């Protein structure tokens, strides 16, 4: 479990992160979203005890960050994937992983078994003895991801895990992360890929120096956009909107792209009454659906459409 309290960091007077308060539960996949310079990497580095915080504090699985001897303990139970793979190019993927496994103190008996299992999961076992320098960018990223998991960490920090990967490789990595998610470890993902975060993460935080919003993608969409019911008819007549407006709980009734839309607080409870009224008015309803708001819509509303 990760808990931050008023966490902040400045660099020469420039605030990178301020008053960050987050709670990430055990076994949760948590996404951190934000524009460049929002402090995502700085947050991750503070939590992984790579740099010190200027204000506040945080606990990772009960250990306080940047406080000895807790720092060393935190580093031993977390896995980190930084922005760049940072592999030793002249060494093979197996040697790279073996080096880190030894440094993390993985017992010799388990080391080979663990490396083989991870490389097989990411379809790299056949090339385990080739120098990393001969690998594609995507393959290097996969090796870097396996490195973060080589010591079977309880918490994993992944900074842009699918950056630079083609769609097929991204899918492999996503499947890999989903498989590891089932093992109950806490995964903390920094990403620009909203779609990926939406698919992988149980909850997310949108941050720009501080957390602007925290919740599941669905919760956030509802919180910032409300819920909208969409009616599609065989033939949309102007009077149908007035029928809906007659209900006090219906707000923002409008016609868009040949569909009638209405914002509702509790669509599950209200929709039957609206359907009934429209049917009585002679409407032939073909579909009643909920308007899906993507994480991107929430993100753009909160971050204000800042250029990436």
């Amino acid at each position, binding site marked *: 479990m990760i808990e931050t309290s008023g966490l902040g960091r400045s*660099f020469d007077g420039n605030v990178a992160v301020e008053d960050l308060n987050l709670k990430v539960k055990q076994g949760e996949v948590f996404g951190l979203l934000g524009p460049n310079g929002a402090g995502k990497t700085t947050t991750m580095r503070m939590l*992984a005890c790579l740099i010190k915080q200027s204000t506040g504090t945080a606990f990772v699985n009960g250990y306080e960050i940047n406080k000895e001897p807790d720092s060393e303990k935190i580093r031993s139970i977390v896995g980190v994937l930084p922005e760049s793979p940072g592999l030793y190019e002249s060494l093979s993927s197996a040697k790279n992983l073996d080096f880190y496994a030894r440094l993390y103190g993985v017992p010799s008996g388990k080391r080979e078994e663990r490396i083989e299992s991870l490389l097989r999961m990411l379809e790299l076992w056949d090339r385990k003895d080739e120098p990393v320098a001969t690998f594609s960018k995507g393959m290097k990223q996969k090796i870097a991801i396996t*490195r973060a998991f080589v010591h079977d960490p309880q918490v994993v920090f992944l900074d842009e895990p699918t950056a630079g990967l083609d769609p097929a490789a991204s899918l492999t990595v996503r499947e890999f992360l989903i498989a590891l998610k089932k093992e109950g470890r806490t995964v903390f993902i920094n990403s620009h890929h909203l779609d990926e975060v939406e698919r992988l993460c149980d909850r997310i935080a949108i941050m720009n120096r501080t957390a602007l919003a925290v919740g599941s993608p669905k919760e956030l969409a509802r919180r910032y956009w409300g819920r909208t019911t969409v009616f599609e008819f065989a033939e949309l007549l102007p009077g149908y909107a007035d029928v809906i407006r007659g209900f006090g709980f219906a707000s923002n009734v409008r016609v868009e792209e040949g569909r009638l839309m209405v914002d509702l607080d509790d669509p599950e409870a209200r929709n039957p009454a609206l359907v009934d009224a429209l049917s009585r008015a002679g409407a032939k309803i073909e579909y009643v659906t909920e308007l899906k708001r993507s994480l991107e819509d929430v993100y753009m509303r909160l971050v204000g459409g800042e250029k990436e």
Partner: protein
Amino acid sequence: MRWDRAWIVARKDMAEFWRNKYIMMTIVLMPMFISLVLPVVYVVPINQLARQSTSEVNLEFDITATYSNITLTNAIMYDALFENVAIKNSILNGCIVRNSTVENSSFTESHLELSQVKDSMLFRCYMVDLTLDLGNTVRESQYAGENQELEDLKAVLFNVLLILLVMIPVMIPTVTASYSFVGEKVNRSLEPLLATPATDLELLAGKSGSIFLVSMASTWVSFLLATIVVDLLTGPVLGYYPLPNDYWIVGVLVLAPGMCAMSILTNVIISSKVNDVRVSQQIGGVLILPILMFFFFTLAGALSTDIVPMFAFSFGVLAADVVILWISLRVFNREEILVSWK
């Protein structure tokens, strides 16, 4: 401090060195040149002088005049005995010279004893306890007592060779450390390394240790090879094996490791400021300057070949190492590396 973690880092770095042809060339070729080729060149004048000193000279004198307490200048003298005389710019044949000073003169088939001889030429002479400088030319002559000229020549050449050998533990870290520290920085492989439970000190010890081991292994092998080459070439002529002497033992066991540590730690500091392996190597090359200074002072005879200045210099280097270690420990920590290293 867990040494097993430092050793894991050191082993990984050494595996990388093994696969880097530039590093391997630096570790193997440069030391081979210094330890195998240079000694061959250096022992030639020693052997030449040593052979001259073994020439057997049998002289018979027919003294017709004796001079003492005078100054002899621009003279040509035959069959004379000189005692307590200052001889300058003169030519002497079949003479005996005792307790005198000689400068810029020429002697043939003469006996010189307990005198100081400078910038002169001696041919078929018998010399007893002379103080000769390197400006003299001696041919087919015989030494009796200590051959000061040969001793001086040996001291200077062996010391210069030693100083060249000490350049090995300075040069190798300049190359290896630039790859090990700047290379990792450029390759961005430091961050995952810093994310491990290894402490800053363990990482610094591991990375520096690998460079130290490789550099000192190469250095000590070079010292050994140079010693063998010098002894094999000069032993039969001198009648004894001149190396290793005290000066070399201090050089090998104190100065070389001290210079190696200085080079490694300085490169750690340089690595925090540069982003290019070659720039790091060039700046690291500046470290050669104090050694070259020592080299030229020795050549010029400004420094004594006595062991005391060697000890003083070596311990000065070790003291400087402590200061540089303190600075490198401040530079090599997670916060600094991730925030301030450019």
